[in-house]
């Protein structure tokens, strides 16, 4: 039904567009000088008919459910529902609705049957009202728009204003959703901090999120100090950057400045394939290739190596970040004006000196921005570490040890049977909030760096 309604709206809009455009063209053909092009008169008809009908329909559908429910609740016989708590009441209403849809189980009481019939009638009337209203809106809108076609009517200004509103609504949506995400993170985190003091979370050196699920279980009380988890993230991120920064920057420098064009044409897409590899595949790679290799190497050297080393997870994550850093570096180097390159060469500098002393310094803001964004990605990266890093939070900076990360802990806290009022579960939101704050801070710093250097270099 609703599908047909949308079809009607679209058809009416299209019809309005063509009718108005034709009317405007007819006037132009008759020698009038129109303020707006014919297509704007057409678009004006759409703005006056299909657009309000669409908005009305969406609003109607949004509020129809709650309003009909409220009417239904009010209509239930008082003696039957008087001593029900809200949970029971909503069960009863669900039953009534399913009866109305024709799914009758057993022998419902007569008042429920009556309520179901009433509910069905309500829904039917609502749909009817929607159709009538939409048709009225479309009709009035089309008629109004058609009447306004004239030489002096400024259809373009109206249409442009409507388009402006639509764009505002789109960007507003993005902002609102971000705000909503932050709000929900904050809300759950605050609930967590009611159970676990914030100081303990921020500065505690122990992370053992074991909370008794039943009363009197022997698991004791959990410890929620995020320091070891965060240090784990830092260790893995550092390893990743240790791999990604030199390889990414040097490969970009080589491909941008020194490689023969044919080599560049082949190597650059190959490098970019790395960016397209799903992180799960990187995870396999870490478990099946890198981790055993590190263990074997450790065994030959007589070094004690944990099974899930930060080194394995971090180095594979580093490989994932290489294309990130190299493409930022490449862009930054390409953006340095050719005149600077020539100016340096003309002073008798070699290509290496030109790179070291002119091109690379001029590209640093872009490169630093790229690195900071890569750090944000490394900190938030989940799949590789879930697969290849450890689960136990040990406070260590030894990359040959097993560490866990913030993202791994969030995943494990939320997996399995969990209740959402349990500190163990809520801790995931607190960790998420911290992750968000850290990456947000990094992004701000990245922006700041880029801006500061741009002032100097432009």
């Amino acid at each position: 039904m609703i599908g047909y309604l949308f079809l009607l709206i679209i058809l009416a809009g299209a019809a309005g567009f063509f009718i108005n455009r034709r009317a405007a063209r007819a006037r132009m053909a008759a020698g009038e000088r129109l303020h707006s092009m014919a297509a704007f008169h057409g678009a004006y008809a759409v703005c006056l008919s299909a657009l309000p009908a669409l908005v009305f329909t969406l609003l109607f559908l949004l509020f129809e459910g709650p309003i009909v429910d409220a009417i239904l609740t009010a209509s239930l016989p008082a003696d039957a529902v008087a001593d029900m708590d809200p949970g029971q009441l909503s069960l009863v209403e669900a039953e009534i609705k399913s009866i109305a849809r024709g799914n009758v189980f057993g022998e419902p009481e007569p008042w429920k049957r009556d309520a179901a019939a009433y509910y069905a009638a309500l829904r039917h009337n609502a749909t009817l009202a929607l159709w009538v209203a939409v048709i009225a809106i479309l009709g009035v809108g089309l008629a109004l728009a058609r009447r306004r076609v004239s030489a002096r009517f400024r259809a373009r200004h109206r249409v442009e204003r409507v388009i402006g509103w639509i764009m505002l609504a789109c960007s507003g949506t993005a902002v609102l959703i971000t705000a909503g995400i932050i709000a929900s993170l904050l809300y759950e985190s605050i609930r967590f901090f009611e159970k676990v003091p914030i100081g303990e979370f921020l500065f505690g050196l122990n992370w053992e999120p074991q909370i008794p699920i039943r009363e009197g279980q022997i698991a004791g009380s959990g410890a929620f100090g995020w320091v070891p988890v965060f240090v784990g993230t830092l260790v893995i991120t550092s390893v990743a950057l240790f791999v990604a920064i030199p390889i990414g920057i040097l490969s970009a420098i080589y491909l941008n400045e020194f490689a023969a064009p044919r080599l560049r044409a082949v190597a650059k897409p190959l490098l970019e394939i790395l960016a397209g590899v799903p992180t799960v595949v990187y995870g396999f790679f870490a478990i099946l290739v890198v981790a055993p290799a590190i263990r074997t190497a450790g065994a030959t050297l007589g070094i004690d190596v944990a099974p899930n080393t930060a080194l394995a997870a971090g180095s594979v994550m580093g490989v994932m970040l290489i294309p990130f850093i190299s493409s930022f570096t490449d862009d930054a180097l390409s953006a340095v004006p050719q005149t600077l390159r020539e100016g340096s060469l003309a002073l008798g500098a070699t290509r290496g000196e030109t790179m070291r002393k002119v091109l690379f310094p001029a590209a640093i803001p872009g490169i630093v921005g790229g690195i900071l964004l890569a750090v944000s990605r490394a900190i938030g990266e989940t799949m590789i570490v879930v697969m290849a890093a450890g689960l136990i939070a040990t406070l260590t900076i030894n990359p040959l040890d097993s560490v866990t990360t913030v993202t791994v802990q969030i995943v494990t806290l939320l997996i399995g049977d969990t209740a959402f009022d349990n500190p163990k579960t809520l801790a995931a939101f607190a960790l998420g909030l911290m992750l968000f704050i850290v990456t947000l801070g990094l992004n701000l710093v990245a922006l700041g760096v880029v801006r500061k250097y741009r002032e100097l270099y432009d």
Partner: protein
Amino acid sequence: MTMLQPDEAETETEAPTAELKMTARDVDVFYGTNHAIKSISVDIPDKTVTAFIGPSGCGKTTFLRCLNRMNDTIRNCRVTGEIRLDGEDIYGRDIDPVQLRARVGMVFQKPNPFPKSIYDNVAYGPRIHGLAGTRAELDEIVERALTRAALWQEVRDRLDAPGTGLSGGQQQRLCIARAIATAPEVLLMDEPCSALDLIATAQIEELIDELRESYSVVIVTHSMQQAARVSQKTAFFHLGVLVEYGETSRMFTNPSDQRTQDYITGRFG
């Protein structure tokens, strides 16, 4: 590549090269299949300003860039013929273009200071070529170059400020200071005033006249008035060929070629 007999070559290099700094013989340049410079031969005397004039697209820049082998950096560019600096073939096997460019400096059409401080801009060449042993020597080189470029008075208090923050004319003088700090023997200038206003242009022209005392200067310009003001020798290029070359005063009063006549009287260009 010349087929001169050894004794003939001797006489040729002895007498005129006392004052000839660079000589070009039958130089052709191709960009891919585009034959941009056609068999050009020019002598560039020492301690003289030589102007290259001609309508745009006639190959002035291309030829100028042959003189310090900047065309090597353009991938599809091919140069044939012979160009000598102090009698030495600059396209010869044992010549490193990097060292050549330290001897033949260049100033570009658009000022292109590095995004570094004024001091570091001027010190760039001396540093990479190791011209100064101590910081004091480097300071002195920088001061001397900036003074010769008529910029010292304006920037002496802000040598640490970025060179890109100067005005257009100051930037171009900074680029000239940067070029002469490397102690070149020849200074190539490709339309150095085309991005500047009248006052800045006048300052640069005055500067070029002073530079003539120590360097051989080659300046490309599309302004004949400028060529007349600053140069002693003028070469007129047209469609990739050298139409006429001689004393500037004679070229502008009594050109021997009809095309030169047409160009300087503004009939085309």
